């Protein structure tokens, strides 16, 4: 009975589906072109960050430190807009941990405040402090860290001891080395690491300035090579692009999976709601730099861009092509209108959070116990993300992409058998 019904439905679908004005292949093409542009912009800004970091290490000063921080903030803008590519594209998701893993036990990398504590039940290396220790034991192996190299970070330290909080590479490791811990709790203020943490000779504060510089340099080199690799994946014959185009319905499902998973489980749940519920400023995504409001904002903007098929590049060039919105508008205009409205509403909420920080309420403060205004700001954005997730599910249904599951169907014997 079930099989017959589904089989007849599938047949109906095949015969009833004439050429749409918008081709699925064009929608996927726009999505991939925007990915290529966003990762290229991420690389450009990471190159500027790398130059600023090398200047800081070569000539440490208040100014070179400030320049490096400014470059990091700028580098986050295009990168956060790429996060919508993560959950739908295995090539991105498998790689992402190297560049944006979070949260981290920063004591793995460098000195921390006494209140941070030491090793924990969860992580024996939470306070390893690689910068201060040229040799140490990790999971029973002696590690020679006399030279701090990209290889050491990537192959020995990253996720050491199979603990995800051992983040040795990526934006947040660099962020920690530029700002240091934010010790202000739920009060305003970011980390206050001094440029003298990179100073030579007697000016060096907190010891091991050379090794700290080596670490920062190695992390920056890795970020560049990782981003270069990802740019290549989205080139005309790149693997990320061809993975999407080989099966158009799977490609569209990937776009929607990325939008929905980032909206709901990741951004609304892990990054925003949990911080409010825990009153914990360490739950801020960019906690060292106090840049969290912008990272949330650009995450949400990326989701909207993925649906509308548009992106404005760093140099002002506008990319705009056939979009999911166009496609959905043809088969179910109300579902398209609902999602567009919901995406707009989310951006209004995100803008309010950003505006509040400009008016003096830092994102940390919004998480404070008893700050009803802050809680309202964050939770309104969470609610808007939840609402837009429902609309994304409706779009999935409207497009009738033929799959049983949105993700993880690889483990099924042959889920599509019933549709054939």
């Amino acid at each position, binding site marked *: *009975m*079930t099989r017959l*019904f*589904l089989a007849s*439905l599938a047949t*109906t*679908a095949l015969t*009833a*589906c*004439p050429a749409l004005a918008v081709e699925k292949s064009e929608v996927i093409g726009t999505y991939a072109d925007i990915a290529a542009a966003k990762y290229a912009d991420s690389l450009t800004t990471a190159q500027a960050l790398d130059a600023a970091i090398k200047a800081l290490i070569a000539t440490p000063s208040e100014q070179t430190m400030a320049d490096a921080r400014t470059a990091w903030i700028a580098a986050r803008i295009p990168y956060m807009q790429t996060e919508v590519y993560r*959950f739908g594209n295995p090539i991105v998701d498998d790689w992402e941990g190297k560049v944006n893993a979070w949260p981290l036990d920063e004591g793995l990398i460098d000195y921390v405040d006494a209140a941070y504590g030491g090793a*924990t*039940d*969860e992580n024996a290396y939470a306070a390893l402090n690689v910068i201060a220790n040229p040799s140490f034991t990790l*999971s029973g192996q002696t590690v020679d860290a006399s030279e701090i190299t990209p290889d050491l970070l990537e192959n020995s330290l990253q996720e050491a*001891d*199979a603990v*995800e*909080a051992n983040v040795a590479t990526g934006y947040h490791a660099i962020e920690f080395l530029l700002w240091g811990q934010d010790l202000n709790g739920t009060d305003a203020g970011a980390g206050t690491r001094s440029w003298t943490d990179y100073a030579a000779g007697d000016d060096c504060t907190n010891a091991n300035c050379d090794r700290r510089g080596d670490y920062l340099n190695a992390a920056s080199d890795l970020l560049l090579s990782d981003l270069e690799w990802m740019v290549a994946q989205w080139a005309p014959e790149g693997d990320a692009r061809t993975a999407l185009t080989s099966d158009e319905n799977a490609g569209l499902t990937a776009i929607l999976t990325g939008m*929905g*998973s980032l*909206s*709901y*489980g*990741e*951004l609304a*749940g*892990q990054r925003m*709601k*949990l911080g*409010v*519920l*825990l*009153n*914990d400023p*360490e739950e801020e995504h960019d906690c060292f730099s106090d840049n969290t409001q912008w990272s949330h904002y650009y995450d949400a903007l990326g989701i909207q861009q993925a649906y509308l098929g548009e992106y404005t590049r760093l140099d002002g060039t506008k990319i705009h092509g056939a979009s999911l919105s166009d496609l959905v508008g043809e*088969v*179910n205009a109300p579902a398209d209108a609902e999602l567009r409205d919901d995406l707009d509403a989310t951006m209004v909420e995100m803008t309010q959070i950003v505006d509040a920080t400009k008016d003096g309420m830092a994102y940390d403060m919004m998480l404070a*116990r*008893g700050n009803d205004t802050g809680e309202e700001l964050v939770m309104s954005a969470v609610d808007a993300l*939840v609402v837009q*997730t429902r609309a*994304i*599910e*409706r779009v*999935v*249904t*409207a497009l*009738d992409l033929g*799959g*049983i*599951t*949105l*993700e993880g*169907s690889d*483990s*099924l*014997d042959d*889920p599509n058998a*019933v549709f054939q």
Partner: protein
Amino acid sequence: MKHFPALIAALALTASPALADLAHAVDDYILPGYAAFADTTAALSDAAADSCEPDTLKSDWNAAFDAWMGVSHLRFGPVEDEGRSVIIAFWPDAKGMTPKGLSRLIADEDPIVKDPKAFKDVSVAARGLFALEFLLYDDQFDATAPYTCDLVRAVTADLADIAGKVSDAWKDGYAETLRTAGAPGNTTYLTREEGLQVLYTNLVAGLEFTANERLGRPLGTFDSPRPNRAEARRSERSLRNVTLSINALQNLTDTLVDAPLPATDAAFAAAASTAAELNDPTFDMVSDVSDRLKVEILQQKVKAAEVAVLSEVGPALGVSKGFNAGDGD
């Protein structure tokens, strides 16, 4: 061309009622589940008002946790308002925030425990079932000490209040909202399929949570097993929670689907019997080179149940899985 989606919708509407029973799931699974959780947490709070002696409270706390396991995987509707599901069961706690949060309240003798309304502002890490587990089972806390006893009372009262609100919200409206999915005027569930989809999504997510978190966290890797990460290990409920979650998810499936599900039934039965054969309430055996295989097999059985559900229940209901809270990292 414009008629195409309407045609599918029409076909779907005529086909699914024969296979799915939304009202049965609401009336015979969800409502009694939340009522039991409200009743047991109220009993726990009453008992704490009389005594903070852990040996007196443990049975009431366990009864409340058992009731929670019946509905813990339902992550939509009233239990998601105001972060309630996270407050009720804050786990996993990778940063050890529950003991830290409790210790801070106790060290400060924070008067917030005397004000039930203000207590709603306390971090979720120091509230709910897992905060109580620390207070009742962990040696670093003495539940009978005067301030700690006030804290136990505040947490139990808060938990009972939340459980009561969730149960009432379902009885007083949300049950009808879900039952009447797709009816004119229902703005939450625009179609009957949306109502079925939310239960189906939570069913699959529940199986994933048990496989990946309840079993996956203590398993860790072969070289680094993590018995200290087992859920509720202090109260030795780790295996019990796995067993209860398998039972609850099977009950949800049974009430929701009115069609033979031979593969799903067999997979649930296999997972339940594998769990019944483990004689280790806290999964300490994951550290033993040969015994850990038994826990790995249980995890595989739960994953096999998920595969069976995906291939059998989804088609029977005519819906695909939506997004869930576990979709992120």
